[in-house]
């Protein structure tokens, strides 16, 4: 079965320093795939390349049978109606209320008028259990609440037409999460985990999650890709990863400071 999202031999360097050195990775439709690895290994860079926020140096990126790494900025806007992203910091706009934040992509992508977009935004906030805070500004809320609102805004990224085949709603087909639980208390983190799992199970959304949180990784992932030295070092289910005899995998998942893994700067 061909992958729904695929990186093929992708290379990327910053200021001459290579980060990705031939990364290849495939993600199936409806899958929850976690990308793990040490800081600076290129996890966030990898997912941002899919939506054109970081250009690649060499290689190919495919989404639903279409090559996307050569798209121009205007063409990327069509792609971004099918792929949403929840950034590491919630990136809500301070000058707007939560409802206005969520309404923004609805106005842009669905061409809704302000009032209609606000009604739909409240429904999306309800989905992440944030409807009662719709008229608050981001600065008035906790990190966990802001993350949930950011997920609602990501769900607002949607095609103007009906749901795609095999899709249970007209929202994004893929959602990229960049460290969604970092900095959150355990309760808020598990709520975010549950939301990600619900998106996949109830709405058929493909989720690609960059994370350092072992509870999330081993709690909700279908598969886990471990990046090391610019390539996918291991790709397995959480159970397979736990049982892996690979010393680098074991050192990472058990969090040992010494071992086979080379960590620059230490």
């Amino acid at each position, binding site marked *: 079965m061909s992958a729904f999202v695929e990186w093929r031999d992708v290379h990327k360097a910053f200021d001459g320093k290579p980060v990705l050195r031939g990364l290849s990775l495939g993600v199936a439709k409806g899958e929850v795939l976690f990308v793990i690895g040490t800081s600076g290994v290129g996890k966030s860079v990898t997912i941002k390349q899919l939506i054109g926020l970081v250009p690649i140096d060499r290689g190919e990126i495919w989404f639903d049978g279409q090559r996307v790494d050569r798209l121009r900025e205007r063409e990327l806007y069509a792609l971004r109606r099918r792929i949403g992203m929840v950034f590491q910091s919630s990136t809500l706009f301070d000058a707007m209320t939560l409802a206005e934040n969520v309404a923004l992509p609805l106005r842009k992508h669905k061409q809704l008028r302000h009032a209609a977009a606000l009604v739909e935004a409240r429904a999306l906030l309800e989905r992440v259990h944030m409807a009662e805070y719709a008229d608050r500004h981001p600065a008035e809320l906790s990190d966990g609440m802001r993350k949930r609102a950011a997920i609602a805004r990501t769900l607002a*990224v949607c095609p103007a037409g009906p749901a795609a085949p095999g899709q249970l709603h007209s929202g994004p087909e893929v959602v990229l999460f960049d460290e969604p639980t970092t900095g959150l208390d355990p309760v808020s983190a598990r709520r975010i985990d549950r939301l990600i799992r619900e998106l996949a199970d109830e709405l058929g959304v493909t989720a690609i999650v960059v994370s350092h949180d072992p509870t999330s990784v081993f709690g909700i992932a279908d598969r886990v890709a471990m990046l090391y030295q610019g390539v996918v070092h291991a790709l397995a289910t959480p159970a397979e990863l736990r049982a892996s005899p690979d010393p680098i995998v074991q050192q990472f998942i058990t969090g040992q400071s010494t071992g086979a893994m080379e960590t620059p700067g230490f």
Partner: protein
Amino acid sequence: MSQRIANIGEAVVSAARAAAELWMVYISTLAGIWRAITRRKAGRGRPKGELVRQLHAIGNRSLIFIVVTLGFIGMVMTYEACLQLSRVTGDYSQVGPQYIRLVISDFGPTLTAMMLATRVGAGIAAEIGSMKVTEQVDALRMSGVLPIDYLIVPRFIASVVMTLLLSTVACLVMYGAGGLTAHYSFGVNLNLFFDVQLVRMRHVVMMIVKAVSYGAAIPVVAGFCGLRARGSSEGVGWATTAAVIGSSFAVIVLDFAISAAALFVTGGDL
């Protein structure tokens, strides 16, 4: 030696690339204004009241700063002019008429823009730079919003309008402050000082052209610097510094270019 040449070449290529990007930001801003005017779909998405907010931030909040600084500059300029004249001829009859001509055609709009380049340029770069390093600009792109439409277009319109208005206020303040200084320090007759017989329409046109040009340049340069911010707070600091230097430099270059063009157009009769 070859390494030095390579470094120079790299710097030239980098500067040329930055100039091309700056030009693209300017063109994209004009295109964004066109979209806003024609109410095309791409123009939607700006928060309501953003233009009014920017008019207030750039204009109202700069008013006291401009009035105070240009008032003092006006006083110093007139005082120095009268002092020099007192040592040479002692004839102050031409101080006021020549001063207002200079203030309208050059000092008023240029000094106002220099002040705005520091205050407004730094503010724009810091705000947009912070949004860039915290990924809010990427979030805008993911929401289907063109960052230039959202971030630079309202500031561009507000800056053009407010630089023109503040330049007018600055000319009046400089003229008034200069007249009172000449009167109380050197006994210059106020009727003699406030004589506008040398002011021509071309001087007013020049003030408008300069104010509009400066008002357009400051947010584009500052916004461009903000959008190039990288990393964290250090990147925002760099963007802010670059914005102040770049905006001030743009004002000086535009002053020279517009004055030279005016001299050419009027055949030297300015």
